[in-house]
C-alpha cells in the first residue's frame, strides 16, 4: 500500500514538473480556469435571478447545490478527466504497452499519471459558494451532515470516475472512440439541478446515469433534504460502479491488440 502512495506522489510531482517546463502554457491554464469559474458563476446568477425555487428547493438550497456541483466538477477535471480520458489514445496508439509491463496495477498507474493542478482552485470557489448559500439561508448544520456530505462527494467522484473508465474502455472493442467522453459532459449538465424527476424515471436514471444525482445527493445530505433510502442506493451504486469499471477494464485488457512496432 505504501508503495502505491509513493508512486502516486512521484507521478503527481512529475506531472506538475512536466507542466512547468512550459511556463507560458502553465500560466494560461490558470487563466482558463478563472474564466471558466467566472462564467459558471454568471450562469448561476442569471438562472437563480429568474427561478426562486425548484421543487422543494428554495433559493439558498439551490446556491448550495451549485456550489457542490462546482466542487465535484473541479475534482473531475483535476484528477479524473486528465487521466482516464487518455485511455482511448493509449489503446489506439499502443502506448498502453509501457503501463502493462510495470509491476503495479495498470488501472492504478493510468488513473494517477496526471494532476491537472490549474483546475484545483475551483474547489475553493465551490466551497465559498456553499458557505454563501448557508449564510443567506441562515442554516445551522449538524456535524453529522457534514460528514455525510464528504462521504457522498466521494461517492460522486467514484461514480464519475467509473463511468469515464467504462466509456473509455469501449476502445478495446471498436478501433476508435474519441467522442465518447463527451457523453459524460452532456449528462453531467443535469447534475446542476435538484431531483426534479419523479416515479420510475428516478430509478431508471439512478441505474443508467447516476451522475445526474452527483451534486443532488451530497447537497441533499448536507441540507437534510434527501431521502435516506435514496441516499443509501446511491452509495451502493457508487461501490457497484467501481466493481463494474474494474471488470470492464480487466476484460478490455484481454482484447488489447497493441499497435505498431
Amino acid at each position, binding site marked *: 500500500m505504501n508503495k502505491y502512495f509513493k508512486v502516486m506522489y512521484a507521478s503527481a510531482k*512529475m506531472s506538475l*514538473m512536466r507542466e512547468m517546463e512550459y511556463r507560458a502554457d502553465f500560466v494560461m491554464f490558470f487563466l482558463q480556469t478563472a474564466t471558466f469559474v467566472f462564467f459558471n458563476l454568471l450562469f448561476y446568477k442569471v438562472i437563480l435571478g429568474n427561478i426562486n425555487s425548484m421543487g422543494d428547493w428554495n433559493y439558498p438550497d439551490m446556491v448550495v447545490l451549485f456550489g457542490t456541483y462546482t466542487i465535484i466538477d473541479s475534482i473531475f477535471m483535476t484528477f479524473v478527466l486528465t487521466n482516464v480520458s487518455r485511455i482511448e489514445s493509449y489503446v489506439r496508439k499502443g502506448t498502453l504497452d509501457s503501463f502493462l509491463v510495470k*509491476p503495479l496495477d495498470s488501472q492504478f498507474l493510468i488513473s494517477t499519471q496526471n494532476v491537472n493542478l490549474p483546475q484545483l482552485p475551483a474547489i475553493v470557489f465551490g466551497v465559498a459558494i456553499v458557505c454563501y448559500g448557508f449564510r443567506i439561508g441562515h442554516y445551522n448544520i449538524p456535524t453529522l451532515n457534514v460528514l455525510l456530505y464528504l462521504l457522498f462527494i466521494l461517492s460522486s467522484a467514484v461514480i464519475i470516475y467509473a463511468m469515464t473508465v467504462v466509456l473509455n474502455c469501449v476502445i478495446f472493442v471498436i478501433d476508435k472512440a474519441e467522442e465518447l467522453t463527451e457523453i459524460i459532459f452532456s449528462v453531467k449538465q443535469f447534475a446542476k439541478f435538484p431531483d426534479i424527476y419523479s416515479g420510475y424515471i428516478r430509478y431508471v436514471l439512478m441505474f443508467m446515469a447516476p451522475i445526474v444525482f452527483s451534486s443532488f445527493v451530497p447537497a441533499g445530505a448536507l441540507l437534510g433534504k434527501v431521502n435516506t433510502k435514496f441516499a443509501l442506493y446511491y452509495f451502493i451504486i457508487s461501490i457497484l460502479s467501481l466493481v463494474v469499471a474494474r471488470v470492464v477494464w480487466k476484460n478490455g485488457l484481454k482484447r488489447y*491488440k497493441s499497435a505498431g*512496432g
Partner: protein
Amino acid sequence: MAFITIKNLTKEFRYYKKQEGFRGSVKNMFKRKKLVKKAVNDISFEIQEGEFIGFIGPNGAGKTTTIKMLSGILTPTSGEISALGFTPSKRDPKYLSQIGVVLGQKNQINPDLPPAETFLLFKEIYGIPEKEFKRKLAELVKLLDVKDIVNVQARRLSLGQRMKCELIAALLHSPKILFLDEPTIGLDVTSQ
C-alpha cells in the same frame, strides 16, 4: 528447469482489407470482409538461464508479437508460456518486477522531462532502494556514456541518445530477463 518455456504458441489478429479510393471507404462502412492473420503460428522453444536469443525474420514475421506475449502485453490466442514459473499474460507483479522491456518504437521516457526524472519515477515503481539505485544508475550512465544528457529534456535528445536512456530505464531494477525489440534504432556503431 528452463527459464522460459513456450509450447504451441499461437496469436491471431482479425483485420480487414479496404479497396482503394473513396468508393472503397463507403463500401467499407456497410460491408467488411473479416480476415484472420496468424501472426504467430504454433511455435515452441525453451530458453535457459544465461542464454542470449535473437529472433531473425522478415517484416511481419511475428517477432514483436512474440515478445509482447512474453512480456504480458498481449494474451495468446492459444498455447502456453511459462517464464520464471509465471504465466506472463496474468501480469503478476512478481513476474513484471523481474523483467525489463525495451520496445524500440515506444518510449517509456517522458519526452517533456529530462530522463533523470523518469529514472526517479521508475525507482518508486520498482521499489529500488536508494543506495542500489544510485550505484546502478552511475554504473549504467558510465557504461553508455550519457553523463551529459540525462539532465536535458528528452524531447531535445537525438534518437540514439534517447534509446540509450530507454536501455538504462529498463535495466535499473536489475531484471532477470530482458526483452529487447529493435533496441539498436539510432545507436552508433560503438554503442551497438
